[in-house]
């Protein structure tokens, strides 16, 4: 039986960012629904935050300084999770363990493994790769598909 696990942290992948950035994107509204839930919960003083791994920002061409990113910065409400030396080593290890996953997917999985507060949910369009990566993580993560 599945256990409900309300996330403390929601990690967004590149397509989730792409979808949030473009109101014409076919998954824009679906992805906003996830953001809305985190905002509703935060407004009730629940501890939940949204994280964008910096590798995701690079892939999604999300330059926070760009005027065109102003709306995305504001509606997404995500903080960065950097890819430092320790994180890069773990992401590289995960990429080696799961053939065929992208560098960014490995970085997202690494972020999901360490960010606080736990537990973590990854919002992604690529649930298959993340389910394979999740099998190697040191703590359980939920995969939420857009």
């Amino acid at each position, binding site marked *: 039986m*599945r256990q409900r696990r309300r996330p403390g942290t929601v990690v967004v992948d590149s397509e989730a960012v792409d979808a949030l950035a473009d*109101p014409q994107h076919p998954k*824009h509204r679906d992805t*906003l*629904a996830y953001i809305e839930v985190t*905002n509703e919960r935060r407004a009730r*003083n629940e501890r939940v935050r949204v994280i964008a791994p910096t590798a995701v920002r690079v892939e999604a061409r999300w330059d926070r300084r760009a005027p065109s990113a102003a*709306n995305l910065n504001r509606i997404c409400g995500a903080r960065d999770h950097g890819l430092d030396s320790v994180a890069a080593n773990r992401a590289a290890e995960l990429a080696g363990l799961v053939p065929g996953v992208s560098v960014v997917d490995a970085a997202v999985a690494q972020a999901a493994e360490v960010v606080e507060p736990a537990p973590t*949910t990854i919002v992604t369009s690529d649930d298959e790769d993340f389910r394979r990566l999740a099998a190697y993580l040191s703590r359980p993560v*939920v995969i939420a598909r857009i």
Partner: protein
Amino acid sequence: MLRFVLQEVRRAMPKRNERQQQVDRLFELLDRFDTDATVVTSVRQPVAMREAVKVAVALGLDPTPNDAAVAALRDRLESFAQRLALDAHYAAHPEARPSLAERALAAARLDDDPLADEPELLARAADAVARLRAGATADDVLLYAAALAEAQSA
């Protein structure tokens, strides 16, 4: 008639611009939280709250009472600012606003709730909850839908 409408629009514009400037200023300040200097300030609060924070810090809430206060206020400011941004986004793109049922489905998926596999039940629950409570949240719908599912299985 047209002249009247134009007058009303002109009258409203400065107010809207002023509000927009305040919103822009709010986000600009939020962006500086991690890099700006700090300042000592005093806050009037219930004595019991001050003591409760001390006890909670001793129990592991945050490293210091100051950290606890700043984190709580930061969370509140960020969620408020995000709400303003989302509402402005929906004003510009009304079709982008997720329905209550869509938000409930997203909440179920975020939580790995078995209700994520019951979108029709969630939609029915959302309809019912929206009639019962203005401003209902996704979690209100999840609770209602869970009760419906429980009643059906009993």
